[in-house]
């Protein structure tokens, strides 16, 4: 069955085509079944191919299948060819596996929606393009998937286009991504002009063999990385992702947490030969990653929308992955990608379950005390939160530790420190979310007739499965003091990506693990102090500063206190940056460029007055200028 692996992307593609064309005529039941089984088939095939792959002797190349010569004549060739090597296998299993769970979850979540068929058509189409992206054996075909997932993401963010916010968010995602894509395509063009081909092996070989001038290599690597910052929501092109939460929650889980947004990390790992050969580009990747990880974590501290917290958290975690790639720990980056796919989609889906239970409420200030009402959602959410915070023996602990160890081993102590600080913040904002949502007083404002209820089985079963993976997935990549061979994941990927930095001595690594654990626990403890033991801290503060207290007598004074005492010093910088950068520069540039384009268009339309003599005048001026140019 493994040799049929090239059908993996095609099955969801065919299903999407059928749904686009006939979706309106099919019954809801049928649509849901078809969409899920297409992804399920892909998942089966991926598993078969993966099983085949791990049985191959070490050093053997993976599966490849050239469907046909796509661009076969001319200065370069680019076949439509799928490859299935170790790196691809990881991504494919994540995409089909997590994708399947999210498809199943969606059958319940979207059951009532008017555009049910359109939703599943887009979701299948997205799966198709995502699989093309990860299975492409050359950069041009990868770009096909790259553009395709962008298109689907845009369509799905704007799914509820009746809401102006959704339509606007879709547009914003689209525009920002196009900026990245422009850089990406330029990178491809430069590569083609200089390497003479676009297959990954060729590029990595050319880069590794020193066949390319280093300046060009850096330029290409940075251009491609700009594309990645667009797709993976890194500084400076991250601004679309928080707004993308306007889409349906399963979409946020699949596209904006587990798969599409990590495509940039995958691309960097795929081209690890190129990035490893270009020091400056790697440095840029690492620092952008670290800056994003810190900055987005700080932003997550002050969000009140449950999905926005998770969105900023995603940005921050992807920053970690880039940090890992930038310091040369590509396998660690991929490892975190995988564990993140599990726990973040779990968190999103669980948040979706919460929102579902509260009939669409997303503001955490109107939640609280939900743990009693949601007996399944709460524990799985807790597992996810513990995993992302890096509490020992859950998946996030191992993968985050692998990245931090990689940074430390590479001698990048500043980056390591930033990662550690980020870990504290991560634990803090995650448990702030947990305490605000599931503990404390019930602050829900439900309409009469509604009651808070646990979600249906189709939603909770995927949650439980994801929770199991979030807890256990880390054991494939244990740190070195479990034995030289404990890092299964790293060894597994060794044939596909550049190997990382040298191993540390066991005591050093042990110390690092302890520090990482301590920072996670510190974050959780801080959150506990501020949000669980609510009466103690604010009243003590209030008695000491009566003026401040009077000021803060409000409903949500906790937030205010916390804002004044903790967040301001820590976050003010981030917020300033956010205000300056996101609101003024990026939004300004977006609105500005839209306005400029509009203005230019208006000007052009004004010139296009409909009067022949204006047209002739333009002709005359053009001709005179042209002739003058020729005469000079």
């Amino acid at each position, binding site marked *: 069955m493994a040799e049929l692996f090239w059908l993996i992307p095609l099955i969801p593609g065919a299903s999407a085509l059928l749904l*686009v*064309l006939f979706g*309106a005529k099919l019954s809801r039941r049928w649509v849901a079944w078809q969409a899920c089984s297409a992804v399920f088939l892909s998942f089966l095939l991926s598993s078969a191919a993966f099983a085949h792959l791990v049985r191959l002797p070490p050093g053997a190349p993976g599966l490849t299948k050239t469907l*046909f*010569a*796509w*661009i*076969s*004549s*001319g*200065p*370069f060739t680019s076949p*439509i060819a799928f490859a299935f090597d170790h790196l691809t296998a990881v991504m494919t299993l994540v995409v089909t596996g997590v994708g399947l769970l999210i498809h199943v979850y969606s059958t319940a979540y979207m059951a009532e929606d008017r555009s049910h068929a*359109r939703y599943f058509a887009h979701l299948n189409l997205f799966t198709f393009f995502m699989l093309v992206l990860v299975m492409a054996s050359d950069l*041009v075909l990868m*770009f*096909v998937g790259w*553009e*395709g997932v962008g*298109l689907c993401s*845009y369509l799905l963010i*704007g799914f509820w*286009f009746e809401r102006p916010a959704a339509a606007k968010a879709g547009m914003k995602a*689209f*525009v920002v991504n*196009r*900026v990245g*894509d*422009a850089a990406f*395509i*330029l990178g491809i*063009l*430069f590569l*083609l*002009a200089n390497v003479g081909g676009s297959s990954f092996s060729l590029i990595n070989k050319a880069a590794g063999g020193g066949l390319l001038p280093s300046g060009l290599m850096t330029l290409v690597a940075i251009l491609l990385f700009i594309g990645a910052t667009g797709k993976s929501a890194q500084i400076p092109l991250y601004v679309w992702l928080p707004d993308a939460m306007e889409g349906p929650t399963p979409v946020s889980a699949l596209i904006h947490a587990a798969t599409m947004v990590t495509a940039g990390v995958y691309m960097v790992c795929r081209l690890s030969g190129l990035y490893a050969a270009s020091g400056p580009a790697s440095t840029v990747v690492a620092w952008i990653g670290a800056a994003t990880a810190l900055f987005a974590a700080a932003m997550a501290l002050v969000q009140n929308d449950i999905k926005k917290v998770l969105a900023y958290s995603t940005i921050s975690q992807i920053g970690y992955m880039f940090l890992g790639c930038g310091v040369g720990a590509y396998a660690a980056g991929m490892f975190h990608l995988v564990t993140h796919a599990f726990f973040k989609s779990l968190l999103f889906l669980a948040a979706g379950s919460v929102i579902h239970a509260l009939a669409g409420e997303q503001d955490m200030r109107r939640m609280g005390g939900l743990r009693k009402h949601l007996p399944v959602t709460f524990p799985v959410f807790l597992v996810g939160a513990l995993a992302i915070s890096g509490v020992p023996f859950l998946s996030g602990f191992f993968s985050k530790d692998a990245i931090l160890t990689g940074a430390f081993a590479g001698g990048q102590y500043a980056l390591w420190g930033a990662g550690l600080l980020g870990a504290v913040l991560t634990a803090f904002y995650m448990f702030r979310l947990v305490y605000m949502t599931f503990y404390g007083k019930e602050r829900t404002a439900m309409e009469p007739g509604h009651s808070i209820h646990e979600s249906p089985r189709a939603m909770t079963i995927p949650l439980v499965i994801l929770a199991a993976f979030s807890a256990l997935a880390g054991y494939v990549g244990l740190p070195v003091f479990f034995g030289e061979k404990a890092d299964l994941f790293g060894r597994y990927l060794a044939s596909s990506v550049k190997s990382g930095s040298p191993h540390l001595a066991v005591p050093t690594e042990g110390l690092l693990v302890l520090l990482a654990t301590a920072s996670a626990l510190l974050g959780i403890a801080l959150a506990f102090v501020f949000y669980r033991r609510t009466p103690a801290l604010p009243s003590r503060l209030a008695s000491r500063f009566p003026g401040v207290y009077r000021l803060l007598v409000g409903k949500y004074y906790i937030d205010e206190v916390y804002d004044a005492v903790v967040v301001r010093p820590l976050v003010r910088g981030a917020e300033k940056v956010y205000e300056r950068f996101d609101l003024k520069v990026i939004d300004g540039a977006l609105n500005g460029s839209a306005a400029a*384009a*509009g203005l*230019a*268009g*208006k000007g*052009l*339309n004004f*010139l*296009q007055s*409909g009067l*022949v003599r*204006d*047209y*002739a005048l*333009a*002709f005359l*001026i*053009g*001709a005179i200028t*042209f*002739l003058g*140019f*020729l*005469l000079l």
Partner: protein
Amino acid sequence: MTTFMALAPLLTVVFGALVVLLLEAFMKRANREPLGYVAALALLAAGFFVIRSWNRDLDYFGGRLVLDRFSLLLIALFVILGLFVLLMGLKYAARQGMNLGEFCGLVLLAVAGLMIMVSSTDWLVVFLGLEVLSVASYALSGLKKTDRTSSEAAAKYFLMGSFAGAFFVFGLALVFGTSGSLDFSTLLAGGVSGAGLAPAGAVGLGLILAALSFKIAIAPFHMWAPDVYEGAPTPVTVFLTVGPKAAGLAVLFRLLVPLLRNEPFAAVFGSALSLMAVLTMFAGNLAALRQRSVKRMLAYSSIAHSGYLIVAVIAGDGPSLVFYLVVYLFMNAGAFSVLAAMSRKGVEYTALDDFAGLGRRYPWLAACLSVFLLSLAGFPPTAGFLAKFYVFSGAVREGHVALAVAAVLASLISVAYYLKVIVFMYMKEDQGEAAIDQENPALYLVIFLCLFGVVQLGLWPGNLLALIRQALSAAF
């Protein structure tokens, strides 16, 4: 080989036009559709002669008519274009009050003009071919005689076209005065030898280029184009957006490629053309952003595509130029065909609002239009992506990096307005009921063929590219 057979494709088309016009004059039946079939037959016969002449390098009239593979390729393109336009017009003519016989005859004559233009290297012949094309297109744009916009388009096109034509004539005079001949090669003798062109030759060429740019719709000579494309009957718009553009670019390419290899010349003409290319791409795309009529939006998009095509000319990249032209024929004709399908007797739906909810009401039509628009926007894996990709990578390879960057940025803008139509079709509720008359088999055939072309060329471009390469290897 010098033989009378070199005239066969041209004569077939002209003969077809005469037959159609005579039949039309003596025909009493109300249903004129057989005339369309006769015209299509003439084009098919011409296509047959094109295939027969392949690889034979026929010429006649002392080398003033040359059927090398480059011109044959373009003639084949024009034959397909003519067939599409005829098929689109079969029902359209009756519904929108056009005389089918005259329409078919004029289309054939215009195609003859295009053929003349691309198969000669003599300026006088090119000029006369251009005039045949122009005169026929002026009439074609005004063929919806009861429609105010159609006749306005004809008048504007005519006035601006004859204005540009006068520049062409003066340019011809200067070129003639420089070299004593109107053949491309004698004029180039000075330029290619490195001596550079005499100022008179350069200015003469400049005047001619301005007039050709007018036909191709390159800024700042493009201003007539949106008005004419919008006002002309939709099948005619397809003809105007593809035919004159392709012929003008072919002439430009033949002329400029030897010249642009020459350093001082390339510095002057190359940079002037680059400037115009950038201007064209941005003018077309920015103005398209604001349009509320899909037809006018596509008109501006056509201008933007002229800009991308010029990039291929500047890079001297013949294969990607021809490939882009072929792809553009399919995706553009496809998009306009769907537009033509959005009509019923006396009514055409071209406003953006008319497309709202089309995805629900006419899913097939909407799906086809989406594919064409995505291709125009350059989304992979459609043919439009490959075409753009080829052109841009050629530009980078030849060192025109800034031009490639500008082109990528410009196409970035273009996606916004193409996608707007798709959003309207699938994500908006329909307001009125734009009930369309679906009985139009010939038109659906065109849509299908275009769809086939866009998908086929996007996934399996190999055969066509090999053919183009083979055709160009000999000529340039």
